[in-house]
C-alpha cells in the first residue's frame, strides 16, 4: 500500500510541476500576480511530494520489498542496510527520481530565499526551471518508473514489469533480488552520484535566471549574475567533488592503477565543469568592468546544455563507454528535450542579442582583462578538444562506416599543452591589475618565483635525471604555486605594514576580509596540486607484471614484492574472496604487508579486483592480484608505482575548502555584492564641480 502512496505523490508532483510551468509563464506574461503566486505554491509543493516518493522508494529498498521491480534489480538480502539505501541511485529508475527530486529541491530553495527580490524575473525563472523539472519527473512517471511491480502472466517465460495488474497475471514476489552492481559498493560510488547530480542539477538555477533575464530584458542590469553567483559556485563545487570522488572510485575499484581514463562518460562530466569554470571567471569581468555580458550568456547556456548532453550519452549508449547505464528507452525523450533546450535558449539569445550591450574598453593588452579573455578562450579550447574527441567515433562511423576509438593518448596530447598554459596563467594572471599593468612591476613580482622555481626544478631534474617533459611539468607547478603563495605573502605584508598586525593575524584578516579573492586563490592552489598529481601520473608512473611462486619476489623500481601465500574465504555479502599475502620491501627492508585480493560475486558472476596499496604523500605502491594457478603455489601480480597521486585528493580537499571560503558572504561587505555600472565610469565625462 505504501508504494501506492509514493506513486500517487509522484503523479501529483508531475501535475503540479506542469501547472507551475505554464501558470507562472502566463501569469508573468499577463502580469497576474496571483497566478505567479499560485505557481510558486505549486513549486513549493512539488518538492515535499517528491520527497515522499523518494522516502518510500528508500523504505522499499531498505525493507526489501521485492514486489517492486526496482528493488528486485538493485537490492538484496546480502547487502548491508546502508548499501540498500544508497541503491536509490544504483539503477536507472531510482537515479532519475533522485535527480528530479534534487532539482525540485534547488528550485524550491530559490523560491523560499529569493522570492521578494528579483520579482520581475521570478515568473520566467519558475517557468524555465520547472519545465526542466517537469521533464525529469515525467520521465520517472512515464518511462522509468521505480514503482513498477513484477507480474507473472500465465504461460509467459519472463516476468512483466507494470504499474497495474496486466490481464491474466498474478503478482510475483521473488525471494531475493539481484543486488547492487558489485562495482558500485564503494564509498566513492556512494558519494559520487549524489554530488554529481547536485552539480548537474544545480546549474539549472543560473541557467533559468539567465533565461528569465533574457525574456524580461533585465539582462542589461546583470541582476541575474548577482543573484546566481553563489548558486553557480555551489553547483560547481559539487560537480568538482563528484569528479574527484569518481576518480577515487576508479582508482580503488576498477583495478587499473589510474583515476582518469578519458572515457566518454568522464568527459561528459568534465565538459560542463570546464565551461562552468570559465563562466565563474567571466562573471567577474561583468561585475568588475561590465564586460562580456553576451559571453556569460553563451557560457551558461553551453554549461547547462553540456550537462544535459552528459546525461544523454550516459544513459542512452549513443557513445560506447565503460560507465554507461544499460541502453534504455529514455533516448528519444532525452534527445527531444536537449534539442529543445539548446535550440530554444540559443534562439532566445539571438533575439535578445542587441540588448546585451557591454562596455568594452581595454586600456592595455597587459591587464587582468586580457588575462580573463585568454583564460576563457583556453577553457573553451579544452572543452572543444574534449568534445571533439568524445563525439568523433560517432562522426567517423557516420562518415566512413568505420568504428574507431579515441583513447587517452589523443586527449593527453590535445589538452595537455592547453592545460599547461592554463595553469601558468593561473599563477600569473592574479598579478595583473585591472585596466593596466606596468611591465616593470610585473617583472619585479615575477622575478623571484621564476628564478627560484627554475633553480629548484633544474637541480631536482639534474639529480634525478628525469625526462625533459616531466621537468617542465614540475617547473610549472613550482612556479605557479610560488606565485600564488607570493600573493598571500604580499597581502600579509601590506597589512602588517599598514596596520601593524602580526603576520598570522594579518593572514587571517586578509582571508576574512576578502573571501572571494583569497578563497579563489586557495581553489587555485588545489588545482595546482591536482595538476601535480596528473603530472606524476603521466610522467613517472612505473609498472610491472609477473608470475611468482611462493617465496619469490617481483621488483619494480627499488621496491620488491614477496609473495607468501594465497588464502580464500567467504565475504559477508555473497562474495568469494581470494587474497594474496605479500610483503612489500624497499631496498631490502620490509615496509608493509599488502593483501591484494579478488572478490568474486557469485550471484552477479562478476569479479572485483581490490588492490593492496601502500600509500605515502610521495607515491603509492599499488598491487593487483591478476591471477593464480589452481594449486595456489604461484600467482600473477601487477604492481604500479604511482608517484604524487595522493596530491590529486589533497588538491581536491583544498578546492572544496577554497570554494567554501569564496562562497561565504563577507559580513562587512554584504552590500558590496554589487552591479557596477561601468558606463558611468567610461562614457560620461567626470563631473567638474566648483
Amino acid at each position, binding site marked *: 500500500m505504501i508504494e501506492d502512496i509514493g506513486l500517487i505523490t509522484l503523479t501529483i508532483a508531475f501535475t503540479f510541476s506542469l501547472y507551475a510551468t505554464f501558470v507562472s509563464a502566463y501569469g508573468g506574461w499577463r502580469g497576474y500576480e496571483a497566478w505567479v503566486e499560485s505557481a510558486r505554491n505549486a513549486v513549493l509543493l512539488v518538492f515535499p511530494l517528491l520527497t515522499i516518493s523518494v522516502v518510500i522508494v528508500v523504505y522499499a529498498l531498505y525493507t526489501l520489498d521485492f514486489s517492486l521491480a526496482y528493488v528486485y534489480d538493485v537490492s538484496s538480502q546480502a547487502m548491508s542496510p546502508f548499501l540498500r539505501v544508497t541503491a536509490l541511485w544504483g539503477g536507472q529508475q531510482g537515479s532519475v527520481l533522485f535527480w528530479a527530486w534534487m532539482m525540485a529541491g534547488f528550485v524550491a530553495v530559490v523560491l523560499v530565499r529569493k522570492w521578494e527580490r528579483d520579482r520581475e524575473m521570478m515568473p520566467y525563472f519558475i517557468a524555465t526551471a520547472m519545465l526542466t523539472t517537469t521533464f525529469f519527473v515525467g520521465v520517472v512517471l512515464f518511462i522509468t518508473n521505480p514503482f513498477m511491480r513484477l507480474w507473472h502472466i500465465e504461460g509467459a517465460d*519472463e516476468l512483466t514489469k507494470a504499474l497495474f495488474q496486466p490481464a491474466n497475471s498474478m503478482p510475483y514476489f521473488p525471494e531475493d533480488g539481484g543486488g547492487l552492481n558489485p562495482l558500485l559498493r564503494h564509498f566513492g560510488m556512494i558519494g559520487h552520484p549524489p554530488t554529481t547530480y547536485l552539480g548537474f542539477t544545480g546549474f539549472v538555477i543560473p541557467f533559468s535566471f539567465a533565461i528569465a533575464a533574457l525574456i524580461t530584458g533585465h539582462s542589461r542590469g546583470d541582476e541575474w549574475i548577482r543573484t546566481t553567483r553563489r548558486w553557480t559556485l555551489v553547483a560547481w563545487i559539487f560537480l568538482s567533488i563528484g569528479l574527484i570522488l569518481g576518480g577515487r572510485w576508479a582508482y580503488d575499484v576498477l583495478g*587499473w592503477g589510474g583515476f582518469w*581514463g578519458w*572515457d*566518454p562518460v568522464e568527459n561528459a562530466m568534465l565538459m560542463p565543469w570546464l565551461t562552468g569554470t570559465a563562466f565563474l571567471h567571466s562573471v567577474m569581468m561583468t561585475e568588475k568592468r561590465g564586460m562580456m555580458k553576451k559571453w556569460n550568456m553563451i557560457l551558461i547556456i553551453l554549461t547547462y546544455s553540456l550537462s544535459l548532453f552528459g546525461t544523454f550519452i550516459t544513459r542512452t549508449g549513443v557513445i*560506447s*563507454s*565503460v560507465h*554507461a547505464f*544499460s541502453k534504455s528507452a529514455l533516448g528519444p525523450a532525452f534527445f527531444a528535450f536537449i534539442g529543445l533546450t539548446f535550440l530554444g535558449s540559443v534562439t532566445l539569445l539571438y533575439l535578445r542579442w542587441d540588448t546585451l550591450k557591454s562596455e*568594452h*574598453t*581595454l586600456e592595455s*593588452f597587459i591587464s587582468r582583462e*586580457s588575462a580573463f*579573455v*585568454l583564460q576563457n*578562450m583556453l577553457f573553451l*579550447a579544452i572543452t*572543444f*578538444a574534449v568534445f*571533439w574527441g568524445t563525439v568523433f*567515433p560517432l562522426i*567517423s562511423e557516420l562518415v*566512413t562506416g*568505420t*568504428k*574507431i*576509438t*579515441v*583513447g*587517452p*593518448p*589523443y586527449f593527453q596530447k*590535445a589538452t595537455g599543452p592547453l592545460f599547461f598554459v592554463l595553469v601558468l596563467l593561473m599563477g600569473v594572471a592574479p598579478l595583473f591589475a585591472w585596466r593596466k599593468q606596468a611591465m616593470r612591476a610585473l617583472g619585479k613580482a615575477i622575478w623571484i618565483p621564476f628564478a627560484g622555481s627554475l633553480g629548484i626544478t633544474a637541480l631536482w631534474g639534474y639529480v634525478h635525471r628525469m625526462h625533459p617533459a616531466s621537468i617542465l611539468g614540475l617547473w610549472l607547478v613550482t612556479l605557479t604555486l610560488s606565485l600564488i603563495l607570493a600573493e598571500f605573502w604580499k597581502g600579509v605584508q601590506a597589512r602588517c605594514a599598514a*596596520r601593524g598586525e602580526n603576520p598570522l593575524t594579518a593572514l587571517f584578516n586578509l582571508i576574512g*576580509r576578502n573571501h572571494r579573492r583569497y578563497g579563489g586563490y586557495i581553489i587555485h592552489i588545489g588545482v595546482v596540486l591536482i595538476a601535480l598529481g596528473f603530472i606524476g601520473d603521466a610522467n613517472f608512473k612505473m*609498472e*610491472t*607484471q*609477473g*608470475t611468482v*611462486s611462493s617465496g619469490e619476489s617481483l621488483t619494480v623500481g627499488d621496491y620488491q614484492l614477496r609473495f607468501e601465500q594465497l588464502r580464500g574465504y567467504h565475504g559477508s555479502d555473497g562474495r568469494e574472496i581470494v587474497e594474496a599475502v605479500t610483503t612489500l620491501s624497499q631496498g631490502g627492508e620490509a615496509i608493509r604487508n599488502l593483501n591484494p585480493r579478488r572478490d568474486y560475486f557469485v550471484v552477479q*558472476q562478476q*569479479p572485483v*579486483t581490490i588492490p593492496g596499496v601502500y600509500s605515502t604523500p610521495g607515491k603509492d605502491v599499488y598491487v593487483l592480484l591478476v*591471477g*593464480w*594457478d*589452481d594449486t595456489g603455489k*604461484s600467482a*600473477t601480480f601487477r604492481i604500479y608505482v604511482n608517484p604524487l597521486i595522493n596530491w590529486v585528493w589533497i588538491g581536491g580537499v583544498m578546492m572544496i575548502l577554497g570554494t567554501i571560503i569564496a562562497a561565504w558572504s563577507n559580513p*562587512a*561587505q554584504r552590500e*558590496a555584492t554589487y552591479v557596477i555600472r561601468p558606463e558611468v565610469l567610461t562614457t560620461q565625462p*567626470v*563631473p*567638474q*564641480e*566648483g
Partner: protein
Amino acid sequence: MQTMRRKLMSVLLILVMSLYAVSTVSAQDGTGYPTDDDVNRIAKQLYCPVCPNTPLDVCETKACEDWRAQIRDQLSWGWTDQQVIDYFVAQYGERVLAEPQRKGFTSLVWFLPLIAILVGAGIVYEILKGWRAQRLAPRATAPPQIAPEVLEKIERELREMD
C-alpha cells in the same frame, strides 16, 4: 517492443557473463622473452575489441586473456610491436587502436582542435584589438574637484571596510 528490449538486455547479459567466465592464469613457462611487461607494453596501446571502451592491458575478461596470450605468441615468433598492432587492426578493425590514426578521415580528430585553437587565438586577438580601439581618449589631466567632506566620508568608509 517490450519483449524485444528484454531480449536485447538478456543478450547483453549473456555477453557480459560469458566475458567473465573463467579468470585464472597459469604460471608462465620459462622466464625469457616475452615477459608480461612486454605483452602489456603492446596491450596498453590497444583496446579490447568487445568490451565497451576498455584498454586491453587491464581488461579482465576471458577474451582479453586470449588476446594477450596471442600477443605473447606473436612476440615469441619474433614479430615486432608494430606488426602485432597491425595484425590487430586488420583482424578486429580500427577500433582496437587507443590512439586514432593520423591518416585519412581519422586525421580530422587531430587537426580540427588545432585549427580551432588557431582560430580561437585569432578571435581573442581581434576582440582585444577591438576593445582597445574603443579606449577612451586620454582624459584631461586636471583632477576633478571633490568636496572635502565627501572625500573625508569616502576615506572613512574605506577604512571601515578593512
